[in-house]
């Protein structure tokens, strides 16, 4: 359980918490996208902080001695995750543009009302 009580992990939890709150309770589509990006940043920060090992070296091959070097898996994971996050954010923003073009607003309640009026 020690893993859950370190400072970086607490900031990850805060970031993720704020992000989930925004994604669920905000009605503006852009704010939802921001919320989801916050969650993604939180998770990425968590992955990076997992890579830290006390007394070991960062896995950068320069002049540093190579013994006692940590496995660079978390860094690789984070890079992949950032790329995926870019793709999802870009796609969601593209949908936002389409929604704005069709409905002239990004407030989800107003969009829902407009769609209801149209179907009736």
């Amino acid at each position, binding site marked *: 359980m020690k*893993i859950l009580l370190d400072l970086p992990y607490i900031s990850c939890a805060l970031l993720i918490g704020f992000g989930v709150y925004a994604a669920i309770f905000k009605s503006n589509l852009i704010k939802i996208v921001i919320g989801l990006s916050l969650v993604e940043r939180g998770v990425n920060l968590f992955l990076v902080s997992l890579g830290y090992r006390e007394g070991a070296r960062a896995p950068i091959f320069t002049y540093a001695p190579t013994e006692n070097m940590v496995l660079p898996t978390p860094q690789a994971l984070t890079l*992949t995750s950032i790329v995926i996050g870019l793709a*999802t954010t870009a796609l969601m923003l593209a949908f936002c543009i389409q929604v704005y073009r069709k409905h002239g607003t990004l407030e989800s309640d107003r969009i829902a009302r407009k*769609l209801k009026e149209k179907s009736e």
Partner: protein
Amino acid sequence: MSIVEHSPALLVGIPLLAAFATPLISKASGKLRDIFVFLCLAFIFALAVVLISDVIQNGTRVYVMGGKLPSLTLPSGKTFPIRIILEPDAMSALMVLLTALIGLIGFLYSLQFIRAEGAPDKFYTLFMLLIAGMLGLEMTGDLFNFFVFFEITSIAACGLVGFRISEATSSVAAFRTMTIYTLSGLILLLGVGLLYGEYDALNIAYIASKLSFSGVDKLALALFIGALLMKIGSVPAHMWVPDAYGESPAPATIALVINTQAGLYGLLRVCFTLFGVSRAAHIGWLLAIIGTISILVGVLASIYQNDLKRLIAYTAVSQTGYMLMALGAGMAAKGELGFGRTALEGGVFHIFNDVISMGLVFLCAGMIYRATGIRDLNKLGGLAGKMRWIAVLFLIGGLAVAGLPPFNGFASKLMIYESVYKLNPIFSALALLCSIILLGVYVRLFYSIFLGSKLVEPQRIPKGMILASSLLALLIIGIGLLPGMVVKSLVSPAVGALMDKAGYIGKVIAGGM
């Protein structure tokens, strides 16, 4: 260097390459592109058949990506695997076969369907990408890789949901679906991170062999289950299903249905292999309860719908509920007793049946929409005169979903009722009741579309679309007549593989548990 040996890698690689080659080939000629996509999908289907026959005969396969030898899981004296390993067992192979089949049928259908929608090259790109993601998801033995394929399917699926860009509702639906998918993907990644922090590994088999069920492990399990329940659209997060299924073009919808089942496969992999069925009894209860609520909500919401595709989408929610209920019951019984095994087999068999019958219903809905341009049930009516064959196909699909005897849905639902009854009669009674309501819903749907006074003049439907739907109808009747054979040759080995945690681990780490 045989094709059997490399089939897992080819199954992911070919659709992925084809997805990005399609727009390039499309620049040269549209016909060439159609032939190319067809050849790729046919080859994938052949590979899937090869893989499943090999896996059922010789047991679980491992394929190390980028290794010297595909079977060398622990290179140079390491005690844990560091490369990405694909590990298809009989359950994965069953899902792969199903995905490849739906890919082929979806293509046959979309050949004439999508030309009228415009931008077929973009459609095929997204379609192949979705297929690639699903095939990878179903075969991978690596948690992070699982997340990557999970996101590939999410992105491609949402692209397909928003494909009809000229319609007012499609982008809204795609945005809503994407929100749920992204959130579930990130929750999944958080769980992966927690497990990595504990065990410094990402390989499912290795983590499963070391798992100590500490607080962090349980948190990770909860995150996985929550994320995958969101992905399959069970009750607390089912609102994306009518949006996504309702707005996507019909051939994309059947790919989305199988994508949902791929999520369910992930749930099974986490519960059975990663955490072990012997520990999962109370999770089984939870899943069974969520499944029952999904059935109720899906069926009851479908009664009030007036939009053709949204109505069918709500019945799809209830079908997912049946699978969850059966698989949960099997887990609650730890899969060992007589009825626990039957429940698992019923659930897995229902995955198989649901994709086919739900697929047929969605394809028929797509043809009705193509012929009339209307989705409002109040404005449809009397189409049976002009669309006799489609009426028959729709009836077959609808009755199979409702679970009537000569069709495939009956065979799996009977197994589910029988076995769940022994866990708790209330679940079984509710499921049976909902099946009856479901029958009513489909009879009403059939009546309001095909019978009564004629309100619209339908256009002609291209032959290719009817052919693809007829193939699914043939499968429904074939499985409905010979359910025992399918269960014995495909479903039972799949359930056996799911239960065999030690065998799955042993393939990667010599010595097993």
